[in-house]
């Protein structure tokens, strides 16, 4: 396992360095970077799967060059899950880049491959190291490498997006560092192993949790710390966006679980932490998808949708923390299991959707959905893969998104039937939030697929679009198949994920699937069989088909094509429902929630004004020191000199008086 992992990271490093060194020969650089990433991904999958299936990890430790931090690697099931997620999307992105990066010719593809591979390597290392110093090191490396990917286009928009991203990421990772250092102060060691065993006073544990939560939440894109996401993810190249949105923000959730559950929780935590997480999750989920609805830029829409899905994951996580704190192991295991499942699923379908957006960008050279249309005919395979992605993200049975949302609902239900009043009150309310989110997500992605792929082309580039080459299609297809697999094959995957949550909680494994069924621990509570649903949906098609076939007369005229009806006028493609018009009703109905977003402008202006004021003040202060010291010393010395000068009257008689006076004084002193 660990040697596979090490080799995987080595592939990344070689791919990155090779890409940079060979940058003059662009085709080779692209190939090296892509194969490096793809290889790293495949090796990572092989590294992670044995750990996940067996539930046992590996630990590796060496002292390293730093006296205060040993280089410890702990490849436990949680780390393995994260490595699996990173590897799956990386493998897809690597193959994808072989063709996609050609669009960036002569703009530094060597550097892009370098930063991308280093980005992947630093993510993989960040999730497996077991020491706070090395974690911070790789965390910051992850941010700086992705920063260069975000500013890659080098236009003002990208640079501003990069600034916002890096600033928020760094500022909040300082919070994470402070949380770790507080633990360090208490335990005397930077090793995570010592953090796990630390016996903290409750107030300190709460401070550490809150700091770590906000630090990691900024990276995860939780509201209101999400402001960088809608700018940074669209600015980066699409395969980098796929990695950032599909994987990197998951590392934020990973951090929250590591600190909240692994270090501090599982008994020592407090329930209010969990409810705080649930609250932030619920707000992020609802507002995230609401803002996604308002977007025309497909990548910004997907970025906001990521905020929404992180909210869903956090709702499950929050309930798990509540369960762990309140001695409800089933709730804890179920919550974490649902969260991990959604983590995995979101990586898959969001990666797929971003790769699809990249394919659209490649073919139509625009990210604006209003300029697309009718691409289902011109890019059939992309359309099919994107459809699978859209269905998955809208939680349509029997695909994977539905399974993880179902498990999340069951977690809310378990909270709702628990003995604690907070659970009974807030669990069902969280379920309502999830329901609203699901309905809005459906609307959002119906619009997305419909506007892009359905009906007719609304612009010239869309009319001339061609299907993308196979290196871009294969990864999308693979991710789509995985979405279907984790949906229909949920009974196979669910127990593995439950095992991961058991490992994190250091408790017994909760069985959540058996045979063809998935159930939330207790089959009496609910039961789901996605293979059955899939089979039935396909099987029941027989009925309408047979109705259609039975009632078929030989002399029925064949189907003809004719324009859609627009009250007698000639139909043009612009006469279909528009991207903005489709979502006007919810935008009006929920306009108060959209007003919250208007707060961003005043905040930005306030910051700019205060910086400007401080700058002006500083400018005025700067010369003061000089003036004071110069004035004091120069004028003082000159004044002193003038006073001394007064002693020299120029009169010889005065000098005789001085001599006599001195002589007299000395004689008197000698006499004494």
């Amino acid at each position, binding site marked *: 396992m660990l040697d596979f992992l090490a080799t995987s990271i080595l592939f990344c490093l070689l791919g990155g360095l090779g890409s940079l060194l060979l940058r003059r020969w662009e085709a080779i650089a692209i190939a090296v970077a892509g194969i490096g990433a793809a290889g790293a991904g495949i090796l990572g999958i092989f590294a992670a799967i044995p750990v996940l299936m067996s539930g046992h990890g590996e630990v590796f430790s060496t002292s390293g*060059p*730093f*006296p205060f931090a040993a280089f410890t690697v702990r490849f436990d099931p949680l780390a393995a899950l994260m490595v699996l997620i990173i590897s799956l999307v990386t493998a897809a992105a690597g193959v994808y880049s072989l063709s996609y990066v050609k669009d960036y010719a002569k703009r530094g593809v060597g550097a892009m491959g370098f930063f991308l591979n280093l980005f992947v390597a630093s993510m993989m290392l960040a999730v497996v190291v077991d020491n706070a110093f090395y974690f*911070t090191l790789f965390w*910051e490396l992850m941010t*700086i490498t992705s920063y260069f990917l975000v500013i890659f286009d080098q236009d003002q928009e990208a640079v501003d997006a990069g600034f916002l991203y890096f600033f928020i990421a760094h500022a909040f990772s300082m919070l994470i560092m402070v949380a770790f250092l507080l633990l360090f102060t208490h335990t005397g060691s930077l090793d995570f192993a010592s953090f796990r065993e630390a016996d903290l006073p409750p107030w300190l544990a709460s401070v550490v949790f809150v700091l770590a939560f906000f630090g990691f939440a900024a990276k995860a894109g939780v509201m209101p710390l999400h402001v960088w996401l809608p700018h940074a993810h669209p600015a980066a190249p699409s395969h980098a966006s796929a990695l950032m949105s599909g994987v990197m923000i998951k590392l934020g959730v990973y951090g929250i679980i590591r600190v909240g559950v692994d270090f501090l929780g599982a008994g020592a935590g407090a329930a209010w932490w969990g409810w705080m997480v649930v609250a932030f999750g619920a707000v992020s989920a609802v507002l995230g998808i609401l803002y996604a609805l308002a977007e025309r830029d497909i990548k910004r829409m997907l970025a906001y949708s990521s905020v929404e899905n992180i909210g869903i994951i956090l709702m499950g996580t929050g309930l798990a923390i509540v369960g762990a704190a309140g001695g409800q192991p089933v709730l804890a295991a179920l919550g974490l299991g649902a969260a991990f499942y959604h983590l995995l699923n979101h990586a898959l379908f969001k990666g797929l959707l971003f790769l699809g957006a990249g394919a659209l960008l490649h073919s139509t050279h625009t990210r604006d959905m209003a300029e697309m249309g009718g691409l289902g005919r011109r890019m059939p395979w992309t359309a099919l893969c994107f459809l699978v992605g859209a269905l998955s993200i809208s939680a349509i049975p029997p695909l994977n998104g539905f399974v993880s949302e179902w498990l999340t609902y069951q977690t809310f239900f378990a909270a709702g039937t628990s003995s604690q009043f907070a659970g009974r009150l807030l669990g069902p309310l969280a379920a309502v939030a999830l329901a609203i989110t699901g309905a809005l997500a459906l609307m959002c992605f119906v619009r997305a697929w419909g506007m892009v792929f359905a009906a007719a082309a609304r612009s010239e580039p869309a009319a001339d679009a061609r299907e993308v080459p196979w290196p871009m299609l294969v990864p999308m297809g693979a991710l789509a198949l995985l979405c279907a697999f984790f949906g229909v094959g949920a009974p196979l995957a669910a127990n593995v994920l439950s095992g991961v949550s058991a490992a994190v909680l250091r408790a017994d494994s909760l069985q959540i699937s058996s045979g063809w069924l998935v159930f939330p621990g207790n089959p009496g509570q609910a039961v789901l069989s996605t293979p059955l649903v899939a089979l039935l949906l396909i099987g029941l098609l027989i009925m309408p088909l047979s109705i259609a076939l039975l009632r078929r007369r030989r002399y029925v005229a064949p189907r003809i094509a004719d324009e859609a009806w627009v009250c007698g006028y000639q139909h043009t493609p612009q006469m279909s429902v528009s991207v903005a018009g489709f979502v006007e009703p919810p935008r009006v109905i929920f306009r108060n929630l959209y007003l919250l977003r208007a707060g961003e402008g005043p905040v930005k202006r306030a910051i700019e004004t205060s910086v400007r004021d401080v700058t002006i003040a500083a400018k005025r*202060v700067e010369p003061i020191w*000089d003036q004071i*010291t110069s004035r004091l010393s120069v004028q003082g010395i000159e004044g002193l000199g003038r006073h001394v000068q007064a002693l020299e009257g120029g009169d010889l008689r005065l000098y005789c008086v001085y001599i006599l006076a001195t002589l007299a004084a000395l004689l008197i002193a000698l006499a004494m």
Partner: protein
Amino acid sequence: MVTILSAGIIIPFLGALAALLVAPHVARYLSVLSAFLSFAAIVAVLVLFVGDGKRAISQDVVSFYGVAVLGFTIDNVSVLIGAAVGLVGLLVCVYSLGYMSLENREHPDEGRTRYFFFLQVFVGAMAGLVFSSTITGQLFFFEITGVCSWGLIGYYETPKAVSGAAKALIVTHIGSLGLYLAAALLFAQTGSFELSSLAAVSPPIKAAILLAILFAGWGKSAQLPLHIWLPRAMEAPTPVSAYLHAGSMVKIGVYIFARALISADAVPEVVGVVGAIAATVTLIYAFLMYLPQQDLKLLLVYSTIAQLSYIFLALSLSVFGSPLAFAAGVAHIFNHAFAKSLFFLVAGSLSFTTGTRMMPLLRGILARMPLVAISFGTAAFAVAGVPPMNLFFSKFTIFAGGFQVSHIHLLLFVLMAVAILESIGSFAWFLKRFGYAIPGQPSERIAEAGPLPASMAVALAILVALTLCSGVAAAAWLR
């Protein structure tokens, strides 16, 4: 070992004298040679030191009437810092080969003898100070470096340069009064000028001596309120700014404080309190001064002041019982020397090729001068404390050390919080500068930039490599 070291210190002085006798265009290569030999000597000392199992030795070289006045101490810290200042000195001499030429668009100048004279004297004096074991030895080399600084700042002989030079000399000399006072007190108490005898002094006097040394350190390292000379010192040629006012001379202040702390064993807490509070105040002030600066060199000056405050903070916190903070402070000296000299040499490269240092005029550097752009980026992110650059490693350790002792008093927590906030603020500022200057379309000045000489490019490249590696190296050395 001591003989090799003495040779390493004397050779640059000899080279300076030789420079007076030869033509200027030979003197420049002579300076490179003597800097190289001096650095080679220090490396030899390092190798022997490591071979000897890192055993610290101390030996007197000059004594009057049985009192050692000048001596050398070869230990972990002095070898590390000595290697750093020696290497930076060598690279600056190499860089000067290219910089001091008529092609320089900002200051076309052939490089007169006095430049190379003072440069070499400085190389020797710096090495002497770092390895000095007596307070008088430190004082001797301290004042020599002051004179070199005066000579080099006033090199271009404009009114601003001359007044800047005078200010620098006067202020640092006022700072050196602290060192005089400390020497006198030490001799009065123990009859010896050796720093190691500081340990035997009674706590109140020890505190007074340390505070006096701290005062001298503030003067040389441009801390509030003795910081006024450093911005004016930017009238010097940029390699001098890189060497003196970023890489070496300003490090003297923190270095003598560090060495005093090493020698003093049990340090009274008041020293730590005074040092920490002064450092934090300077830190805040320096950060606020970033904001109005349009000249790149002035921005770097205030950044240097801020980083030196960090080092003072780390050293002061170590007084409360954190060897980790001390090691972090020393590592920060090592790392910052490379990162900040790199940044200054980048500023010099920009002014050489475009004739201006004004940041609003410099945009899109990556498109036209990739090496300068990469150097700028490396230096900017290093100063901002982002890995894999070196300053991240020492900054993290400073925070770790600080937190280690912060439970002693709430005030220390507050200081740490302020330091962290400043770190975030300066990071934001340098990120913004980076985003403005490096990517995008080249501005007019950059588009018309001249070529960069090979010697300057070599110096930049080596410093970039050092900035990436030195963090790990320092930490490993100081285990």
